[in-house]
Each structure stands twice: as C-alpha cells, then as structure tokens.
C-alpha cells in the first residue's frame, strides 16, 4: 500500500481528488486505461449496433414511464376519460388506461409514441446491423458465437415488439393475438393445449394481457439485456473488425481509441438518436389505438396489419391459397391439421435456421477455418452476397404481401392480382435475386480488377505520333489499390476422400456446393499480373515502385 512508500499521489483539483479517492478504493484506473485504449475503426455501417443499443435504452426509459400508468387488466369498465368518441363505451382496463396515457396524462402520448417508434427503429437497427455483419462476413471465425447471440437478439426483438403492441387490447392488437392463437392451434397434437395454456382457457379469456405484460416488461427485457452484455463482451474480446486498407492486417485494428474519441462520438450519438426519436414521437402518430376501439373478437378492420417486423408472417399466411389446388385442411385420425396456416410457417423456420447456421455452413463449404478480422467488401464474396440477397428478397416478398390490400387501393390494381404476382415472386424472386446479385458482384470485381491493372479512365484521348488514338488511364493511388486487391480468394474445393479413402455423400454435397459457389470467380490481382500490366502500359507513365510487392499480396 502507498502508506509504506514515501510518495503518495496528491491530486491538485477537486475533481482529481474525487477521482483519486474512488481509484484508491475500487481501482478503476486499470480498467479505464485498458478500455479507454480500445480501438474502434471508423465506418458509417459500424454504427447500427449502437443505434440498436441506444433505442433499447430509450425503450427502457419510456417503457418505465408507461408501466407506471398502464393497468394490465382485462376487467371490464366504462370509459370516462376525455376522448369524446369513446365516452361511455365498455372496454378493458388495459385499453382504458392506454387511452388515459394518450389523452389524460401529461406527456403520456409523447412517451407512448416515443416507445413505439423506438421499438420500430430498434427492430430496424438490429436488422440492418445483422445485414451489415452478414454481407461483410464479420460472422466468420472467431465471431460465430456472437452471430448466434445476435440471431437470438433479433428474435427477442420481434417477440418484445409483439408482446408490446398486443398490450393495449384494442381491435388491432386483438386481431394479432387471434392470429397468434390460430398459429398455435395449428400445431398438430399439442396446438390446442398450447393455446389453452397460454390464454388460460378459450381465446381471448381474461389472462392473456397480464401474462403478456409480465413477459414484456420483465422477462424479455432481462434476457435482451443479458444477451447485450454477452454480445458487447464478445466484441471487446474479439476486437472490432475492419475493412481492408493500407496498414490494416488480421493482427491489428486501425482506428481511434475509445478515450477520448469514441467515448465522445458514441456519447454524442446517443443524444442524436434520442433527438431523432423524440422528433418522430413529437410530430408523427403511431398506433392510433383510439381509432381502433376496444377489442371485440368479431370485426377485423380494413388495413389490419402487424408492425413491420411481424409483417412477414402475416404476408406468408396471406400468400397461402385457401383451397387451391385442394383443400389444405387435412384430417388424420379425426385430428384436423390446417396446413394453410402451418405450411407458410415452415419456409420461415427454414430461413431462420439457415440464417443461424450460416457461419458453419460457409465454413464447411469453403473449408476456411482461419480467423478473419478483415471484412469482405460484399462484391468480393459473390456467393455470400447473392445468398443474402436471395434471403432478403424472400423475406421482402412476404413483408410486401402483408400490405397487399394497401398496394391494391393505392396503385389502383386488383387485390387478387397483387397476391397472384406475389405468389409467383415468392418462388421466383429469390432465385432471380441470387443470379442477378452474383452477376453484379462479379462485374464489380472485374471492374475493380480493370482499375487495378490499367488505372482509371480519364476521358482524355491522345493521338500518338504514328496516328494511333489512346485514352489516357490514370494510375491508381497505392492506398486505394490496397482496398481493391485485399480479399480472400476462395476457389472450388472438390470433394476429398476421408481417412478410409472413401468420398462420403456429405462430402460430395459439399463439393457440389463449393462448385456452385466458386465456379465463377474473379481472382484478386497478383503482383506478377500488376507488373506485367505496368510493363504493357509504360507509355502511359505508370509509376510502379518496389513497394507494390508488399501492398499487393
């Protein structure tokens, strides 16, 4: 301890004394020193995780406010608040208290809208963050487990949203619960039991709102919070990924330290996000529950849709034919199985399973078990980008189908035609998206290759003494060239025999997938190719220094 030495640090300022007092008791300085020196690379697409985190904080704050006034009870009462069109209407305490929050509690409507808008942006930010991680290959070793945590957070965001917008007990939220009930009941054998268990008897019963409430305000936020901690902990352990660039390797991170740069940037960004959310909440209506009226199982109003993050499930059911080409309600041993509800859920589950398993799938096909800290530009992984585009397209077709009725009214087309076209798109659009995206990626790679080898076209045309016309190409700056040539060159890995000299069926499948993924590829420019190209273009005064060999791997 410092008492045994001659020297004890004496702080000069008041703040310093307080800091020193705390530090000598709990020893914060090594932690601050370590964490303050963490380096984060700069790229706009790296900030969506932050947006998700900040909107989650806003959700916690605004949700706490709402919980103080919301009454999660399905007891019937007569509304006596200040919203005239609902006065004297019989409704549940949950709906009445939501109306009170909206019309009779100071700032209540603002906070309700802040909460709901933040939920939409939270789900959107999580999705965009996941797409960024996927398309840049940031999920590769060592980050596979963090990808799984991310998938878990994405699913929890959806559940959090659904349990949240089901709480006000208006017609729209009741419709959503009714569909959830229908999907539960569609599960063979256990479906009816599950539904009875969740709703405490027949739908809607008197238990579902209190149950959803405790799931929404306690269970889900707690699990999300826990997963966020794990997620961020792993980010610190793995360090942040970075895009290729000069000086950036698999063994370093080039960027700015947390203290002071990122602490300020991230802290400021929180207030920016809060400001954007507050602006939206203060100016724009969301979920006008006063229009929908108290829940009544009989009506389903025109334009009933779930919030956007649930939309794809709604769309999947809308796309499913009712009786064509045969009746989809099948009966086995006296048990009826509504395939028209069950079947659309199967591709959705396959989509999510593929998403969760993708890091392992890709590793299996490419046989690439190396650590990756340098990100892929999406064009440099055409197979992955194309698969991702196909998945996004499939999801989007379902999401669009959920708003088929609004497309019909707003574009003056027939609702039936919209659904017919989307049914075709459900099967064809992902395939088209795969082919088109892959071709675009390969063309962009060829363009990059062209620029690396021959420089940029300047548009200046010169006539040589012997009469030939050439266009002057401007050689590429070495720093920019680095970005264009630094990417892993995956090649077809044909099936290989195992220890017993046999090629197994799985290995054959892997070989086929590998050929499908990497048969068409554009290789990164090699130093030799660059050398040859420069020789060829000597007339255009390309400067090729010896350092090229290091820059171009």
């Amino acid at each position, binding site marked *: 301890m410092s008492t045994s030495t001659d020297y004890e640090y004496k702080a000069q300022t008041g703040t310093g004394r307080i800091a020193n007092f705390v530090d000598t008791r709990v020893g914060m300085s090594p932690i601050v020193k370590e964490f303050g020196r963490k380096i984060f690379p*700069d*790229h*706009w697409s*790296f*900030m*969506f995780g932050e*947006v998700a985190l900040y909107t989650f904080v806003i959700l916690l704050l605004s949700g706490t406010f709402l919980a103080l006034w919301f009454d999660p009870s399905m007891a019937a009462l007569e509304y006596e608040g200040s919203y*005239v*069109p*609902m006065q004297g*209407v019989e409704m549940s305490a949950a709906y009445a208290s939501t109306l009170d929050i*909206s*019309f009779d509690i100071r700032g209540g*409507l603002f906070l309700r*809208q802040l909460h709901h*808008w933040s939920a*939409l*942006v939270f789900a*959107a930010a999580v999705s*965009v963050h996941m797409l960024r991680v996927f398309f840049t290959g940031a999920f590769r070793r060592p980050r596979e487990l963090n990808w799984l945590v991310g998938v878990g957070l994405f699913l929890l965001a959806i559940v959090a949203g659904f349990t949240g917008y089901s709480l006000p007990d208006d*017609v*729209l939220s009741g419709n959503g619960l009714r569909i959830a009930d229908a999907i539960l009941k569609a599960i063979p054998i256990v479906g009816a039991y599950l539904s009875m268990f969740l709703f405490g008897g027949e739908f809607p019963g008197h238990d579902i709102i209190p149950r959803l409430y405790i799931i929404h305000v306690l269970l889900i936020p707690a699990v999300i919070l826990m997963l966020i901690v794990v997620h961020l902990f792993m980010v610190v352990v793995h360090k942040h990924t970075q895009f290729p660039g000069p000086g950036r390797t698999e063994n370093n991170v080039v960027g*700015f330290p947390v203290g002071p740069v990122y602490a300020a940037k991230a802290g*400021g*960004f929180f207030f920016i*996000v809060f400001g*954007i959310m507050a602006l*939206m909440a*203060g*100016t*724009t*209506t*969301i*979920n*006008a529950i*006063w*229009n929908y*009226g108290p829940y*009544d199982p*009989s*009506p389903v*109003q*025109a*334009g*009933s*849709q*779930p*919030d*956007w993050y649930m*939309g794809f499930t709604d769309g999947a059911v809308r796309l499913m034919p009712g009786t064509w080409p045969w009746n989809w309600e099948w009966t086995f041993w006296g048990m009826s199985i509504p395939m028209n509800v069950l079947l659309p859920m199967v591709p959705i589950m396959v989509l999510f399973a593929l998403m969760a398993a993708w890091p392992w799938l890709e590793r299996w096909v490419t046989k690439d078990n190396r650590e990756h800290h340098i990100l892929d530009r999406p064009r440099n992984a055409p197979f992955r980008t194309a698969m991702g585009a196909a998945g996004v397209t499939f999801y989007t077709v379902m999401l669009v189908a*959920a*708003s088929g*009725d*609004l497309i*019909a*009214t707003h574009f*003056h087309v*027939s*609702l*039936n035609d919209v659904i017919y076209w989307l049914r075709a798109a459900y099967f064809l659009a992902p395939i088209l998206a795969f082919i088109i995206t892959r071709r675009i990626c390969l063309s962009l790679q060829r363009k990059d290759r062209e620029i690396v080898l021959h420089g940029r076209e300047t548009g200046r045309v010169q006539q040589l003494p012997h009469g030939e016309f050439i266009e002057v190409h401007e050689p590429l700056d070495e720093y920019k060239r680095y970005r264009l040539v630094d990417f892993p060159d995956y090649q077809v890995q044909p099936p290989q025999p195992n220890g017993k000299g046999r090629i197994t069926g799985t290995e054959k499948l892997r070989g086929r997938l590998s050929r499908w993924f990497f048969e068409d590829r554009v290789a990164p420019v090699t130093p030799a190719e660059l050398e040859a190209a420069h020789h060829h273009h000597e007339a255009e005064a390309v400067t090729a220094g010896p350092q090229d060999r290091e820059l171009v791997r």
Partner: protein
Amino acid sequence: MKALSQQRRHPLAVLVLMVLALLLTGGLYAVATTTNEAKAQTQTYTAQDVEEGQKLFLANCSTCHGMDGAGTPSGPSLVGVGAAAVDFQVGTGRMPMQMNGPQAEKKPVQFDDEQVQQLAGYVATLGAGPNVPEQEYLDVAEGNAANGAKVFLANCAMCHNAAGAGGALTRGKYAPSLMEVEEKHIYEAMQTGPQNMPVFNDANITPEEKRDVITYLKTLETAPSPGGFALGSLGPVSEGLFVWSIGLAVIIGFTVWLTSRSA
C-alpha cells in the same frame, strides 16, 4: 268452430296452414319494409321536375339503364332505387359512369344541384324507394359521436378502415375513403348500398344512429390528429415505411457525418 276442428286432419290442412303462415310472414315483412320507405318518401317533386328529369334521363342515362329505366344488359334497373340512390350516385359524380370497371369511381359532378334533383324526381316516379334524407338526420350538432364510433366500428370499419381511410375489396373493387364526403351522401350510401356496399336500412341502423355515424366521421375529419401527422391513418404499414425510409435515412445521414470527421 266445430266444423273447422273436424277438418283438422284433412289431407289439405297442412297446405292451408302453410299458405296462411307464408301470408302472415310475408305480410309482416311487407309492413316492416314499407315503414322505412313511408318515412323516407317525404320530399316532393313538382311535375315540372319530373318532366325535366325525364329529359335529362333520356339524354344521359337511358343508353345503359333503358328508355324506361327498367335496365338493359349494360346497366341495372332503376325501378325502386329511389331518389336517394340518384342523389348519391349522380351527386358524387359516380354516375354517369366514365367507363366500365370494377366499380364506378368518384369524379367531378356532371350536373348542377337542380338537375340532380330533377333526375332524382324522375327516378322516384319509376317505383317507390328511399327519398333523400331529411335535414334533421344530417345535423351533426344533434349526433352522438361516441355511439357513432360504436356503430361505425361494428359495421363499417371492416371495409372502410377504423379511421374511415378506405380499404381494398376483391378484384379491384374497394371501399373508398370517407373523409370529405358530404353528410347527406354518407347517409344515402348507408341507406341505398351503392356499388359493393350492403344496404343498412332503418331497421338495421336507425336514422338517429346514421346521424351518429356521420357525427363520428365528421369528428375524425375536423378534430386535429392527437398524435401529430397521421400518415394517412393507414396503420402499421405506413408506420413501417416511415421508419425504413425517413427514419433510417436520417440516422444513416448522421452515421456518415460522424464517421467522416475522423477526429
């Protein structure tokens, strides 16, 4: 009386009973339905109105509805549709129809008020039907918005959307937006069931309740949206679009700005 009871096992007794029962229910139904019409048929049209109306009808409507208004393969019979139907269809510009389609669209009105009245007067002479509503059932000052909301949400919102913003029907048909529709046209639409709309007669929704519905719609129309921009009152789809377009664009703008200023 004794003679009647002795005949009760006669083979034709069942038939007689059946005829009596049918007469009774039919008679009751006729009484029930005519009470609506009797109440409606109050506004009177002069002989000159009817005469002018017939001229307008022959010039503008008879191609499809027939010279005597009894209908042709291109247009339905107008016998018994009443003045209310004409006032609605012609008064909102839906008739004369611009072109064949899934349903007649609202467009600029083709006739002036007097001509609409004359046409209505003529069509009313073709057969008894609902007349244009009386002023007292259109006065929103008398209506009850809360009851109107109840009736509207139970009967109308399925097609017209909870906020009256309209919605899609099958095969290109649709329920139009109810915003900025005249009171009497809302009333007449409920009463006559134009296009694909069902008829809500006075036994189903009483004239007072119709007035409440109109009051609720006018409340929605005139009261400022409590939460700010209503985004067309279309619900979660427009909210999702708003987040993914404007919301995300603003956020991306800030992320680009923050990361472009490298310390």
